[in-house]
């Protein structure tokens, strides 16, 4: 049990930096206005926060920075609704609201000694990115790392500069792809959809865990590929994106079968997912 405070009132955070990733995606770096609050803030990769702009409302985003990075957190959003449209005009020194961290996290401790496979599509890069950086910063704890990341078009790739930096690490393979027709003349990556590219990439599945995040259709077609590669359901992880309001297991919106995604998720293994009703 936690002490009784207003669990719906956010902390204030200052915008340190805004990066435009694509035509409709931006990433934002923020830090607590209250230094003391920043000092005791800890989170685990995979957790999410409720980010808000006053007068517009709150939205749920994964904290896409690594938990090793102190003094700031980052989140990334696509401009789609009322809140994200308002967030789009954020500038340095602006103030936003933050509640969190909420939800469970990627079991990085459990993954120690394993080969890691990260598969993502489109705007799903941010929730992979925090885990990728975490793994790279603790490089000796993990085996081979393979990252397969695809987007519709070259210009839709999020955190594109970082992809190159990751590839420079030891025993890290980055496979980047765009949908057919989405390539540019200077594109050197793969052309094709994430499931097919994954299959072609011949990633060794032995002693591996996979983290798959992306649009439902990508997940749907990627899972059989992973099964064919020999990954067990309990070694395949994903993060659900149910609509949330409170983030603390009260408002009922993210309830899916026996779980509240905000409290018992958002991270689930495929094994757990299969026991959930198809309601997400």
């Amino acid at each position, binding site marked *: 049990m936690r002490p009784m405070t207003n669990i719906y009132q956010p902390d204030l955070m200052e915008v340190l930096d805004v990066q435009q990733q694509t035509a409709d995606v931006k990433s934002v770096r923020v830090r607590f206005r209250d230094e003391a609050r920043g000092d005791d803030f800890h989170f685990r990769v995979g957790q999410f926060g409720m980010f808000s702009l006053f007068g517009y*409302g709150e939205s749920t985003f994964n904290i896409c920075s690594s938990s090793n990075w102190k003094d700031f957190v980052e989140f990334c959003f696509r401009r789609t*609704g*009322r809140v994200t*449209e308002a967030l789009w005009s954020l500038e340095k020194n602006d103030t936003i609201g933050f509640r969190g961290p909420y939800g469970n996290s990627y079991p990085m401790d459990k993954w120690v000694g394993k080969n890691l496979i990260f598969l993502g599509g489109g705007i799903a890069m941010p929730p992979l990115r925090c885990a990728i950086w975490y793994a790279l910063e603790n490089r000796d704890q993990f085996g081979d790392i393979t990252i397969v990341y695809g987007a519709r078009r070259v210009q839709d790739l999020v955190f594109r500069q970082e992809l190159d930096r990751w590839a420079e690490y030891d025993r890290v393979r980055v496979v980047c792809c765009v949908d057919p027709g989405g390539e540019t003349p200077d594109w050197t990556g793969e052309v094709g959809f994430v499931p097919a590219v994954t299959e072609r990439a011949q990633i060794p599945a032995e002693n591996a865990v996979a983290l798959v995040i992306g649009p439902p259709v990508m997940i749907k077609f990627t899972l059989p590929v992973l099964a064919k590669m020999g990954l067990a359901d309990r070694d395949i992880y994903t993060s659900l994106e149910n609509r949330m309001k409170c983030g603390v297991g009260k408002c009922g919106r993210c309830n899916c079968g026996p779980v509240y995604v905000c409290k018992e998720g958002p991270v689930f293994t495929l094994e757990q997912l299969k026991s959930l009703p198809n309601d997400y």
Partner: protein
Amino acid sequence: MLQPLRETCRRLLQDGTVQVVIGYGQAVRAVEPYPVFITAPDDVGQLVWNEQCRTNLVKYLLRKEIRALGKPAIVVKGCDERALVVLQQELQIDRSQIVVIGVACDGMDEPRCEVCDAHQPRFADHIIGHATNEMQPAERRYAHLGEFLERPLPDRMAYWKAELERCVKCYACRQACPLCYCERCIVEKNRPACLDTSATLKGNFAWHIVRAFHLAGRCVGCDQCSRVCPEGIDLRLLNLSMAREAEASFGHRSGTDPQAELVLGSFSQQDQEQFIR
């Protein structure tokens, strides 16, 4: 009445004219009849007809869950039928793809039935039973509103404050209304957020003004909104006020003439304008 109704429905289902009949069923007398969707000819026995069949079923013609069942036949009373006329005028339904079974009605024991002039359906494809439509003078039809408007303005405001104080914004009024069919209602739009979604007095006034006015010149007076309101708010008064004015100023009674122009979709250069400076 009931036997011919069931027989008509059985025939329509049997010969494949329709795939579903939207009608009334009832488990026990103590519970009001509720809508049923009959898809098999042998199930027509579930259909009932009695003086408790108050619900206007027309809304179901617009619900995607019911549309998925195939071509419908629908059981309507003379008053419900008027909503069909408006939906047809507003191009929301293809009348040729709907079989309308009109049932003559002697009244459903509601106040509005006393001033009803549509006991006998007029536009149905099949008519069950017979009733007589008597002309009702406008003063009688709008008597309920007339009485209310005898109160001075501040009393009216006080009345609505007390009534709307209870509104919890369950939106039953909207969901049950046969003429509320927007894909996304204005209260659900948030870019920009035009109305407060809160069920505060402020948000409730704003909502009920919107709800009523979006039915201006359209409402057919089926009273679904008042009937379904769990807080017993007399929304009928709001609808009547605009229906009366539409009739007085433009000679328009919604849902009585499929050929008529829509009140707010048309205008006349002669429209009254004493109130404009």
